[in-house]
């Protein structure tokens, strides 16, 4: 009961979005996946397009519920997690 899957909305931007082929999706994440870095590893194993998007996790930035987070940040309690390349606005 304490090891239920976690429901999440994922969003992708820029070339992460292009490589995965969609702007967002709803996923159920296994209980063993507890951090942003682990979520990227889990996603990378979901198929070729994900493997391509996350081939170099060091360059991917993440946000939980619209705030920047680090790879080691826990995902518990997150509603929406976004992945994107370094920002180039301004």
């Amino acid at each position, binding site marked *: 009961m304490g090891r239920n899957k976690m429901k999440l909305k994922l*969003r992708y931007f820029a070339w992460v979005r292009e490589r995965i082929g969609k702007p967002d999706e709803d996923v159920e994440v296994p209980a063993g996946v507890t951090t942003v870095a682990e979520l990227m590893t889990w996603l990378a194993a979901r198929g070729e397009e994900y493997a391509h998007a996350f081939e170099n996790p060091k360059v991917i930035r993440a946000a939980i519920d619209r705030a920047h987070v680090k790879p080691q940040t826990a995902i518990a309690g997150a509603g929406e997690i976004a992945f*994107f390349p370094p920002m*180039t*606005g301004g």
Partner: protein
Amino acid sequence: MTTQTIVRIQTEPFDTAAEAAAITRGRTDAGAVVTFTGICRGDENGVPIASLTLEHYPGMAEAEIERHVAEAIERWPLIGVTVIHRFGRILPGDDIMMVVTVSSHRAAAFAAADFLMDYLKTRAPFWKQVEKTDGKIWVEAKATDDEAAGRWAAPAKHQAAE
């Protein structure tokens, strides 16, 4: 003293001068106005471009900019701050974004505008894609932008700039 702040994310063009005038109108304590306007150049690293397309993360873009505007207001005595950032397709020569900072004294206005630009470049969730004759490519982030943003990390939060 409250600081007037405006943050807008839009596809429409903006008028930097009108935004600056809107902050200072009717105030007698404004002594210094700094504006920064970012313009779409006609080339990217020497290669001509046809257009620029800006993607953003709606909701987070506003929140992130507002958070940095609030930090600027905490750091410097500001009368008003306006930040407008466009998204969508932008042609060479067109404005991309602007920052206006107004203060009683110039040091605060300059520092706050410079600070906001460094943070917008590295933290605001916007991504530029340029269209060249041989296709579209995503603009790569520059290490110099991270270094520039790093300049502001060291001092304590409540430093006085004047």
